[in-house]
C-alpha cells in the first residue's frame, strides 16, 4: 500500500512537472500570438480585444492555471492551421483513434511474435536456427521504422499489390478494410521492436538457465522443455514486462514517423503539420497527451511489476 501511494505521488508530481514544462516551453517563443492569429492588418483595438478574450494579458501563473483547467476538460484552445476556427481538442480526438489502433496493433504483433521466437531461440541455444534468428534480429534492429515502411509500401503495395498505398479508410466507414490497411504500418512499427524484444528475452532466458534451481530441476529428471516452460519462463518474463512497457514510448515515437510514410491521419501527422504551421495550441496538446500517456504507463508497469515480483517493494 505504502509503495503504491509513493508511486502515485510520483505520478502526480511528474504529470504536473510535464504540464508546467509543456506550457512554459511555448511561452519563450518570440512573436505575438494575437498578431499571429489575426494577421498583420489587424487594428490595435482588435488585437486588444483578442488578448482580452484569450486571457493573454494576465500573468503567466494565472494563464498556466487557466490552460491546465481547460486541458483537464480536453479544451486546449483554438487551432490556427486551418481556415475554419477549430478546437484543438476536437482535432486531436479525431486523430487519436488512428494512432491508438496503430500502437495497439504493433504492440500485439510484438508480443505475439517475439515471445515464442525468443523462447525458441534460447531453447535451441547456439543451434543453426538460433544463430539465424540472432543474425536476423541484429539486422532488423538497425532498420529505421520509416524506411521499413517505405520498403513495405514498395514490396507489398507496389510490386505484390497486396494493398494500394494511400488507400486508408476511416474505421467508422469500413472497419475490416481499415484493419487490412493498418496491418502494414503496424508491421513497419513492430519489426525493429520485435528484433529488440527477441534479443532481450533470449538473453534473459539464458541468464536464468544458469541458476541453481534449474540444475536442481534437471537432476530431478525433468525434461528440458518442461523446465523451460514451467520454471524459467516465469522468472525470465519479469524483466521483459518492463522492457515491453518501456517499448510503448518507442512505439508511439515510431508511429509518428510511420504515419507520415503511409499517409495516416493520426496524431503524428497532425503534430508534424502543426509544427510546420506554428500551430502551438495543437503542438502543446499533443505533447501533453503523449508524454502523459507514457508517464501513466510507466506508473501502471511499476504496479504490475510489484504484483508479479513482490521483491521490488523492499528496495
Amino acid at each position, binding site marked *: 500500500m505504502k509503495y503504491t501511494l509513493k508511486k502515485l505521488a510520483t505520478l502526480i508530481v511528474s504529470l504536473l512537472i510535464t504540464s508546467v514544462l509543456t506550457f512554459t516551453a511555448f511561452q519563450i517563443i518570440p512573436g505575438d500570438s494575437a498578431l499571429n492569429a489575426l494577421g498583420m492588418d489587424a487594428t490595435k483595438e482588435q488585437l486588444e480585444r483578442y488578448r482580452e478574450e484569450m486571457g493573454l494579458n494576465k500573468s503567466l501563473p494565472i494563464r498556466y492555471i487557466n490552460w491546465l483547467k481547460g486541458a483537464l476538460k480536453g479544451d486546449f484552445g483554438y487551432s490556427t492551421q486551418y481556415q475554419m476556427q477549430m478546437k484543438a481538442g476536437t482535432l486531436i480526438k479525431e486523430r487519436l483513434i488512428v494512432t491508438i489502433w496503430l500502437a495497439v496493433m504493433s504492440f500485439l504483433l510484438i508480443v505475439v511474435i517475439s515471445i515464442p521466437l525468443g523462447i525458441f531461440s534460447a531453447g535451441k541455444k547456439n543451434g543453426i536456427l538460433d544463430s539465424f534468428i540472432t543474425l536476423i534480429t*541484429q539486422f532488423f534492429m538497425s532498420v529505421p521504422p520509416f524506411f521499413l515502411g517505405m520498403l513495405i509500401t514498395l514490396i507489398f503495395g507496389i510490386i505484390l499489390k497486396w494493398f494500394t498505398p494511400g488507400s486508408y479508410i476511416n474505421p467508422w466507414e469500413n472497419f475490416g478494410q481499415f484493419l487490412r490497411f493498418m496491418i502494414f504500418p503496424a508491421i513497419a512499427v513492430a519489426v525493429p521492436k520485435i528484433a529488440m524484444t527477441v534479443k532481450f528475452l533470449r538473453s534473459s532466458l539464458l541468464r536464468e538457465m544458469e541458476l541453481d534451481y534449474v540444475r536442481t530441476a534437471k537432476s530431478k529428471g525433468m525434461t528440458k522443455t518442461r523446465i523451460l516452460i514451467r520454471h524459467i519462463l516465469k522468472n525470465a518474463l519479469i524483466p521483459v514486462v518492463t522492457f515491453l512497457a518501456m517499448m510503448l514510448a518507442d512505439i508511439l515515437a515510431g508511429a509518428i514517423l510511420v504515419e507520415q510514410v503511409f499517409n495516416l491521419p493520426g496524431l503524428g501527422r497532425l503534430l508534424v503539420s502543426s509544427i510546420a504551421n506554428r500551430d502551438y495550441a495543437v503542438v502543446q496538446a499533443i505533447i501533453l497527451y503523449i508524454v502523459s500517456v507514457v508517464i501513466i504507463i510507466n506508473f501502471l508497469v511499476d504496479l504490475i511489476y510489484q504484483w508479479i515480483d513482490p521483491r521490488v517493494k523492499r528496495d
Partner: protein
Amino acid sequence: MKKMVKIKGKTYHLNYILGLVITSLVLLIVIIGFFYTPYDPNTMNAALKNSPPSLMHPLGTDNFGRDILSRVMVGAGTTYVIAVSIVLIGAFFGTVVGALTGYFGGWLDEVIMRFNDVLTAIPSILLALVFVSIFGPGTYNIIFALGILFVPSYARVIRSEFIVLRERDFVNNAKLMGAGSLRIMFIHILPNTRNVLIPALLIGFNNAVLAEAGLSYLGLGVQPPQASLGRMLSEAQSYLLDSPWYALAPGLMIILTVLGFSLISGGMGND
C-alpha cells in the same frame, strides 16, 4: 556472440570483426565523399530525370537528374557530421554532470537524477520535435536539440560508474597524495570508465543517425538542397513508384551504418 576469431594471438568476437569490416567500408565511402564525388551532388540535369542505375550513374539519378551515388556519399557525410556533433555535445555535458553527481552525491544528485528519469521516459524524437517547433527547423537546431537530449543518457552511465569507482583504493591513494577533487574525477576516475563509455558512444552515434534521419525525413532537419540520408529518403518517398532505387540507396546506407556500429559495440561488451 559465441563465435570467436583468433587474430595475432588475440581472440575477438566474430560480430566485432564483421562490424569493423562494415563500418570501415561505410566510413571509406563517407571520407572519399568529403574530397571527391563522381558528379556534383547538387547539379541538376533535366535530361536524366529518374534514370535507373547504369554504368554512368551506378545508383541511378533522382527526380532532378542528380547523381544518387554522389548524393549518398555527401549525404552520409552530412549525417555523420551531425551525429558526431550530437554525440560530442551529449557526451561532454553528460560526463561532466554524471561525474559531479556520481562523485559528490547529495541533494543535487537526487534532483538531477529525478529530472533525468522524466526525460529518459519520453521518446527523444518527441522532445526533439518540441525543440524544433520552438526554435525552428534546420541543421544547427537539430544538433543543438538532440545534443541536449543526449545528455541524460551519458550522465546516467557515467554517474553509476563514478559511484562504484570513487570507493576504490586508487582514489583513496590519490586523495592521500593530496590530489584535488577535479583531478581525481577527470584524471584518475574518468579513464577507468572507458569500458562503458566507448560502447555508449557507439550506441549514441547510432541513435543520433536514426534521429537525424527521422527528423530530416519529416522535413524538420536538414533543409534542401543540402543532402542528408534522412532528407534523401523524404524526397524519395514521392517517387517510390517510378524510381524505387532512389529510396534504397540512402536507406541501405543508414542500415549498414547502424548495423556496423551495433555489431562492434555488442562484440566489445560481453567477453
